[in-house]
């Protein structure tokens, strides 16, 4: 009887220590991860997964592999492992963490539409207030990276009416030029769209070319040279007229891009909150 008990204890001890062994492996992998040694961390997490027959560390190892790949800039691989971690999550919090990391990877690899879709799904799965702020926060980031500053400001204001990022988004939105307005005024007065977007010399030149084209066209019509008038207006005047409208649009877009880039630079270099 005692021999049986002895053998039983031996089996139990080997199981306990096998798990301790995997625990040590996890600890080692975590140390590598914490010291930003992501390549080796991935190897050790993979080793842990390989020997973890009972899938006890499946969520954590896959989640950390996903994060390591994310920090290394391998977003597709990161998403693959984060999805596996999501499937192996033991608690709703773990699954939530995996899902949010997938959203963040999508923001980093600029697949914003997917990020929006995933955030909608998360919102449906986690309707409680506990998760709302984080969902809104990342939706705000998705809008910002989608160059939609107005909606981004709305999302951040749901978290806090004085949220730092809300203020930033409002500032960007206020500083942006209206592309439609630039085009409309260019239809009415060629070159004015350029001037509106701060390109004064371009605006004056465009206005001058249009004036000249119009003058030659009208002169040709006045002298009954209809074919000349057609050619001059089609090849000359209309080219500059259309050019002034398209140019105004491009100029306003370019200025808006500069304003957005300034905001992105701020987010990248100076913003101290959580980033994707």
């Amino acid at each position, binding site marked *: 009887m005692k*021999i049986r008990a002895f053998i039983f204890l*031996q089996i139990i001890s080997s199981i306990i220590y096998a798990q301790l062994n995997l625990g040590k492996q996890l600890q080692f992998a975590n140390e590598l991860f914490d010291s930003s040694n992501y390549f080796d961390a991935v190897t050790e997490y993979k080793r842990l997964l*390989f020997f973890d027959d009972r899938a006890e560390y499946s969520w954590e190892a896959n989640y950390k592999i996903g994060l390591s790949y994310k920090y290394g800039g391998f977003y597709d691989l990161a998403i693959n492992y984060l999805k596996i971690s999501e499937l192996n999550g033991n608690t709703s919090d773990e699954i939530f963490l995996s899902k949010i990391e997938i959203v963040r990877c999508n923001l980093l690899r600029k697949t914003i539409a997917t990020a929006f879709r995933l955030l909608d799904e998360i919102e449906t799965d986690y309707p409680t207030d506990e998760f709302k702020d984080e969902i809104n926060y990342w939706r705000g980031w998705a809008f910002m990276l989608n160059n939609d500053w107005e909606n981004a400001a709305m999302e951040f204001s749901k978290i806090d009416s004085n949220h730092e990022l809300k203020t930033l988004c409002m500032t960007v939105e206020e500083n942006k030029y209206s592309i439609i307005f630039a085009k409309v005024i260019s239809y009415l007065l060629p070159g004015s769209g350029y001037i509106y977007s701060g390109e004064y010399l371009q605006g004056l030149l465009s206005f001058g070319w249009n004036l000249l084209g119009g003058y030659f066209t009208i002169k040709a019509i006045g002298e009954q040279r209809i074919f000349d008038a057609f050619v001059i207006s089609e090849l000359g005047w209309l080219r500059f007229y259309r050019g002034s409208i398209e140019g105004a649009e491009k100029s306003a877009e370019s200025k808006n891009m500069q304003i957005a880039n300034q905001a992105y630079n701020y987010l990248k270099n100076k913003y101290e909150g959580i980033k994707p």
Partner: protein
Amino acid sequence: MAMEKGLIRLIGINRILLKLFLTFFLIPVIFLLGQNSGSDNEILSPLNLYKFGNYLFKQGDYLRANNELKQYLQYENNDTVRFKIAYSLIEMAEYSEGRDYLKPLFISSEISDEVKCFYFKSLYLGKKYSDFIEQSGIRIFQPTNYSEDINRLKNFFILESETTLIDSTNFFKPFDKQDADSIRKYFVRKYYPENKSETTAGLLSALIPGAGKIYTGQTGDGITSLIFNSVIYYLVYNNFANKHYLRGWIFSALGIYFNAGNIYGSVASARIYNSNLQINLGIDMKKFVEKKNYFMPDMSGILK
């Protein structure tokens, strides 16, 4: 019970002593042994290094697989592992280092024939044309059972690399009929390409604006050029006819400018057409040899 009695007799003490022995000595020792056997040494045992390395290899994580398999090699020399390391290195485009792992397996290895085939594949992938040709003629490099496979790859490599016309008498013999037909087509495309003459393209455009572009297959561009130049020439005629000499000369200059551009464009178009023929040939040949797995024999048994 019999075992227990036997144990008591063996130790020569009574039950109480056995209990004490089990409680204070044997069980703690076993726990400690368990702890030792369950330490890092177990996960990093040579066998486990091999198993984990093989798992990474199958996953296609060649860099990490290599690290594990190289560590395993320090404990045990294994030809298959060495081959897998070489395979991983070649997959990672580290051809030279890969070949270094293959060379020791040329002699007295059960897989030496497959190794030699793979060696030549690495030379092909590494674009080592002269080494390939030279070494394929050396006996020690020749695989006994797969010499025909190497000949096929060799001929394909020659066709890809040689710029001068090659002797086609026995060139297609190593290939089966279907492959020979495909390679014959590549041969014709390489040495007898349907090039467009740059001079013809230029002359055609000089005579009829846009005709050179139509000749090189740029029909849309050609028709646009024809219409545009016709309008300009009409304006030249119309202005001179109506004694608007200044405008006539301005449109003439414009016409000459556009026509010169058109001639130059047609010549360039012919040049691009010809270089595209060679680029497309290269792409097609690459696809073909990839599809044929570089004429390699089946190595799935070794790569399990």
